[in-house]
């Protein structure tokens, strides 16, 4: 017990406390000047915008993947099911490297996409691609247990009452899928906001255009602008805490809903 608290404070609370303490020494105007500079605002916009887009893509395709994996039987299902965790197990640097290469002009996918005008590498679209990859397991793995524990009785009841398959889906299945989808969405979004490794390789990191907030923090640090780095870090930290609280609230709400 004592060891737990000691180790927790040493490893987790002390560093966070140090950061917050240092930032609290700043005056408000200094803090806002650093945290909300034009370049920082552009970086937040990209980070949040791309994270939202990626989470939405995952909400659609991740849900589809979870549905197909739990409901249908087809050759290779187990392999795909095991591979869903691949983005989680793969070091982010490798993910960024291989995705950048795939979507670059001479890559396997870029070769066909770039002539069509779809620039995957070194564009904001690249950031969305990397974040979709990184967030995929969160959506699928949150939905799967709910889908597989869903009782078929309810669907049978709906069908026997004359509802078509589409109506059963929209009125019966979709409402049950919604709470885990919101959780998965929030988890993927939260992960995407802090993501760094995979994006460094694919985005090109152009200020005001393809530069994400974590990258700008590193740049500030390399310029020895510690205040700028810390101010932006606190903004990111605040957003992730709010998201964490949100996820907990949703889960509690969904739990009560199920009981």
């Amino acid at each position, binding site marked *: *017990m004592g060891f*737990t*608290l000691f*180790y*927790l404070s040493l*490893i987790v*609370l*002390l*560093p966070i406390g*140090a*950061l917050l303490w*240092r930032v609290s020494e700043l005056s408000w105007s200094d803090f806002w000047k650093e945290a909300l500079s034009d370049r920082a605002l552009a970086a937040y916009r990209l980070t949040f915008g791309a994270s939202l887009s990626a989470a939405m893509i995952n909400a659609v395709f991740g849900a*589809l993947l979870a*549905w*197909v*994996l739990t409901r249908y039987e*087809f050759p*290779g299902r187990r392999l*795909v099911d*095991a*591979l869903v*965790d*691949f*983005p989680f*197990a793969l*070091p*982010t*640097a*490798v*993910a960024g*490297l*291989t*995705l950048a*290469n795939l979507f670059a002009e001479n*890559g*396997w*996918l870029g070769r066909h996409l770039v002539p069509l005008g779809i620039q995957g590498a070194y564009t904001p679209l690249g950031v969305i691609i990397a974040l*979709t*990859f990184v967030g995929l397991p969160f959506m699928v793995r949150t939905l799967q247990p709910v889908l597989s524990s869903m009782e*078929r009785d309810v669907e*049978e009841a709906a*069908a*026997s009452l004359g509802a078509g*398959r589409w109506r059963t889906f929209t009125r019966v299945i979709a409402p049950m899928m919604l709470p885990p989808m919101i959780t998965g969405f929030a988890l993927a979004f*939260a992960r995407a906001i*802090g*993501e*760094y*490794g995979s994006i*460094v*390789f694919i985005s090109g990191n152009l200020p005001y255009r393809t530069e994400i907030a*974590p*990258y700008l923090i*590193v740049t500030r*640090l390399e310029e020895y602008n*510690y205040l700028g780095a810390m101010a932006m*870090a606190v903004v990111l*930290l605040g957003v992730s*805490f709010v998201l*964490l609280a949100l996820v907990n609230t949703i889960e509690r709400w969904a739990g009560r809903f199920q009981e």
Partner: protein
Amino acid sequence: MAGYVKSQIQTPRRSLRRSTDEPAWVRWALTALAMAFAGVFLFLPLANVFAQALSLGWQYYQESIAHPHTLAAIRLTLLIAAICVPLNCLFGLAAAWAIAKFEFRGKSLLTALIDLPFSVSPVVSGLMIVVLFGAQGFLGEWLRERGIQIVFSIPGMVLATVFVTFPFVARELIPLMQAAGSDQEQAALTLGASGWRTFWHVTLPSVKWGLLYGIILCNARAMGEFGAVSVVSSHIAGLTDTLPLRVEKLYNEYNAAGAFAVASLLALLALATLVIKTWLEWRVAREEQLAQQGPMLSAGDIAGNSVEK
């Protein structure tokens, strides 16, 4: 007559079963679409790593990996993992033990705090270590006087990795230990076993798969961490470069095949992690099945043996 009644009963039942399935073409379309998505976002990135790594031939691949700086990076990565994983494993056991077996105030707060590092950006985690131990940081002056270098050297990288991989083991063990309850431990203690012995022979075996699961996830992250380590490292080749940092450096030197060769090692690590993870899940599922079937089987053996054979 009997046949007529039977078919009357069976026909609606069959159509009812079908009514909870989608039409075949919808099933095929959905499966195809999902597999296309999985192909682009799961299969291709994986296959591409190995294809690019070997794009300049097997010889070049071997040379890239046998490069002294790469070998040094492998050693450093293994060293960091060898420190972080046991530390967080020990903590995970202690934290799960404290949370599952005792009642105290602020328990949910403690659980939330354990998960905290997951929601902090890796870059911010690294920055915190710099703020705490760096030259301008809180302990910077004190450390400098004593000639201890933490930031921009290996101790800082270890600390950053410990922070990032902190929750993995604990969060696997907490639900397991909570579900197991403390009855068995109390029984062991009543029978005269010491606390330590109870832990080794009762608690640990009951959570061993969960523990292993947490350890491989923790290890995968410890070896693959990029952002946090990148902020704290001094990026000196052969000295403070881990494998992911080495990948970045080779890539920035326009040595794509070399970068992919090193990256393929990390991809193999990810694949090994997935294989062990899948195997563990399969084992746990089978054990649960056996535990459920166990009593029924023995009862069935007595009653149904002659009927079956």
